[in-house]
C-alpha cells in the first residue's frame, strides 16, 4: 500500500471514529430529555422497575389527559401555571434585555468614572447563589406585600438576569466598529438613529442570544419561585411540578408529562431564535 492510500484510509477511519464519538456525546446529552418523554408515556410500574425497562411495553397519553382534566380528577391548573410562567418570563426577559442593551452599550462605548468597578460589581452579583437570596427576599416581599404576585417574581428575575445580559450584550457591541456609528452620524443620523439603524441590527444576534438565555433562566427557575409564590395566581410551571408530590407518593408519570409541556415552548423559542444567531454579520464593515 502506498503512502497516499494509507493516508486516505487513516483519514476515513478518523472520520468514522469522530462520528461515533459525536453520537455518544449527543446521546449522553439527549438521554435525560428522551427518558422524560418516555416516562411520561408509560405506567409508574415501568418507570420504577429495576432493572430499568428501556423499551416501553405500552404507551398511553393518560398523564396528559389527566393533567388537563381539572382538580379532583388528577389534574393540575396547568393552563394557569403556563400563563403565569409566560407572563413572568416574557416580561422579565424584555425588561432585562432592554436594560442589558442600555448598559451593555454604555460599557462598550463610553468612558466614565468607576467603569471597571461597576462592571466587576455587576459580575460579582452572579456569584451569589439564587437560593441564598430566597429567604431574605421572602421576608422583604412579605413586608412589601408583593409575595405571590407576578410583579414580585418579575422583579427578582430582572435583577437576576441584568448582569448577565449587560455582560453578553457589551461583548457584542464591542464587536461593532465604532466607525460605523460615526459614519451614520455623518450621513445625517442623530446618535439615537445611528444606534437603531446601524448598531442595533449588527448587535442583533448577540441581543437575541441574551434574550434566549434570560428567558430560559426565568422559564426554568425553581428555587426562588417556589419560595415567592404559593397560589395558582402566581405559581410557575416548575413550581407546579410539586403538585404531583403527595405526602407518601410521587406521581412520576404526571411530573414527566408536565416537564414535557414545559420543555416544548422553550425548545420552540430556541429553535426560532437560533436562526438569527448567525455570527460574522459584521464582516466586510471595515478594512479589506
Amino acid at each position, binding site marked *: 500500500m502506498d503512502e497516499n492510500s494509507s493516508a486516505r484510509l487513516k483519514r476515513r477511519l478518523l472520520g468514522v471514529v469522530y462520528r461515533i464519538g459525536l453520537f455518544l456525546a449527543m446521546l449522553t446529552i439527549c438521554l435525560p430529555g428522551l427518558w422524560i418523554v418516555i416516562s411520561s408515556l408509560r405506567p409508574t410500574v415501568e418507570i420504577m422497575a429495576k432493572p430499568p425497562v428501556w423499551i416501553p411495553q405500552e404507551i398511553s397519553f393518560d398523564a396528559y389527559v389527566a393533567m388537563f382534566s381539572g382538580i379532583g380528577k388528577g389534574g393540575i391548573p396547568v393552563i394557569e401555571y403556563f400563563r403565569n410562567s409566560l407572563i413572568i418570563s416574557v416580561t422579565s426577559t424584555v425588561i432585562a434585555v432592554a436594560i442589558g442593551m442600555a448598559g451593555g452599550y454604555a460599557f462598550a462605548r463610553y468612558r466614565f468614572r468607576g467603569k471597571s468597578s461597576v462592571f466587576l460589581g455587576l459580575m460579582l452579583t452572579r456569584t451569589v447563589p439564587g437560593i441564598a437570596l430566597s429567604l431574605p427576599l421572602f421576608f422583604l416581599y412579605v413586608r412589601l406585600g408583593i409575595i405571590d404576585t407576578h410583579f414580585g417574581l418579575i422583579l427578582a428575575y430582572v435583577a437576576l438576569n441584568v448582569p448577565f445580559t449587560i455582560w453578553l450584550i457589551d461583548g457584542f457591541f464591542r464587536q461593532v*466598529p465604532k*466607525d*460605523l456609528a*460615526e*459614519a*451614520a*452620524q*455623518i*450621513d*445625517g*443620523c*442623530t*446618535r439615537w*438613529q445611528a444606534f437603531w*439603524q*446601524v448598531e442595533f*441590527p*449588527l448587535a442583533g444576534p448577540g441581543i437575541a442570544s441574551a434574550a434566549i438565555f434570560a428567558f430560559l433562566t426565568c422559564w426554568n427557575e425553581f428555587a426562588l419561585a417556589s419560595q415567592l409564590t404559593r397560589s395558582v395566581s402566581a405559581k410557575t410551571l416548575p413550581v407546579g411540578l410539586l403538585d404531583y408530590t403527595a405526602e407518601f407518593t410521587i406521581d412520576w408519570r404526571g411530573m414527566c408529562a408536565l416537564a414535557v409541556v414545559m420543555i416544548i415552548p422553550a425548545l420552540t423559542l430556541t429553535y426560532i431564535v437560533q436562526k438569527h444567531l448567525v455570527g460574522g*454579520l*459584521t*464582516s*466586510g*464593515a*471595515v*478594512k*479589506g
Partner: protein
Amino acid sequence: MATVSLTKLTKRYGNIEIVHGIDLDIADREFIALVGPSGCGKSTTLRMIAGLEEISDGSIEIGGRVVNDLPPRSRNISMVFQSYALYPHMTVRENLGFSLKIAGAAKEDMERRVAEASAILGLDTLLDRRPSQLSGGQRQRVAMGRAIVRDPDVFLFDEPLSNLDAKLRTQMRTEIKKLHAKVQSTVIYVTHDQVEAMTLADRIVIMRDGYIEQVGTPDEVFRRPATRFVAGFIGSPPMNLHEATIDDGQMVFASGEKLPLPGQFKANVATGDKVVFGLRPDDIYPTGHGISSGGAADVHQIELPITVTEPLGNETLVFVEFNGSDWVSRMLNPRPLRPGERVAMSLDMSQAHLFAADTGTTLRS
C-alpha cells in the same frame, strides 16, 4: 461648496493638549492635505471639523457659519473613513442611499442620485452586493460613493488609501484626483503618506506634535521648507541633513570635513552659528549625471567614497559617505559603480537649505 476656517483650534484630553490652537483658512473648492507622522494631531483635527470630536477651544467655520457645537449631521460634510465603515447589513445600493433615506428624500430622487454616484465610480454592477462580497478597492469606492451622494459642502478623507495595496493605492489616488475635478468640492484629506499629499493637494499642511509646521503648495513645501522637520518629511528619498558650525564662510561638520557656505545664506549667518545643512538627493550627483539647475559657480565638486548603490532602472540611488554617515544622491543616466570606489560628486549649493540648529527654522530670508 464652502470655505473652511479654523481659528485657534485646540483639543485637550484632560490635561494633555493634543492640538495647540492651530489657524488655517481653506478656500472654496480647494484640495487641502493634512500630513504628518502618527500622533501629530491631523486625524483629531479632521474629526473636530467633522464634529465627531468636541473642540476644547477656538472655532471652526464652514461656509462662513460657526459650527463649533453642531452635530456632524448639521455640518453638511461627508467623510471617508480609513476603515471604509460600510454598513455590513446593507447592500451597496442601501449604503449609498442611506443618508438620503435618513434625510427623507423621495424615492425617485434617491434612485437618481445613487445611480449618478455609482456611474461616476463604476459601481453599477455591484449595487446589490453586500460589503463583505466586495474587494478592498471596491469597498473604497463605495465609501467614496456614499460621500458623493450627499453632495456635501466639504469632503473629509481620513487616510482613505492606507488599507489598500501599493498598486491599488496609486490607482485610487488618480481616481480621487479625477473625482475632485468632477465634483468640485472643498476637500480636506488626511494622510501620513507625503506622496499622496504632494500628488493630490492644492496646498499641504504639515503638522507635527499638534502644531502646523508649514502650509504651502506642494512646490513650496518641497523647494522652500520652512523648518528642518518639513525638509526631512517631504521628499523621497528624504533630504540629507547634517549639523555644522559656521566658521569664516565655511560649514565645518563634526568629522572636520568642510563645505563652502551657500551664497544665498551668507548674509544670515555668522561665525560660530550652529546650523543644519540640507541637500536633496537630486542636488548631489556623480558629476555629469544630474539635473544641473543653479549657476555653475554654485556647484561644489568633492570626491567621496561609495558605500551602496540601489539601481532603479532609469536612475540609481548612490549612497556616499560624508561626515561619518551616508548621503543619498540620485544619479541619472547611471553608469555602473562599485562600492568603495571614490567618485567625483557635484553638490548644487544653489539648491541647498540651511536651518538654525536650535529652533529648526529656515535661515532663508
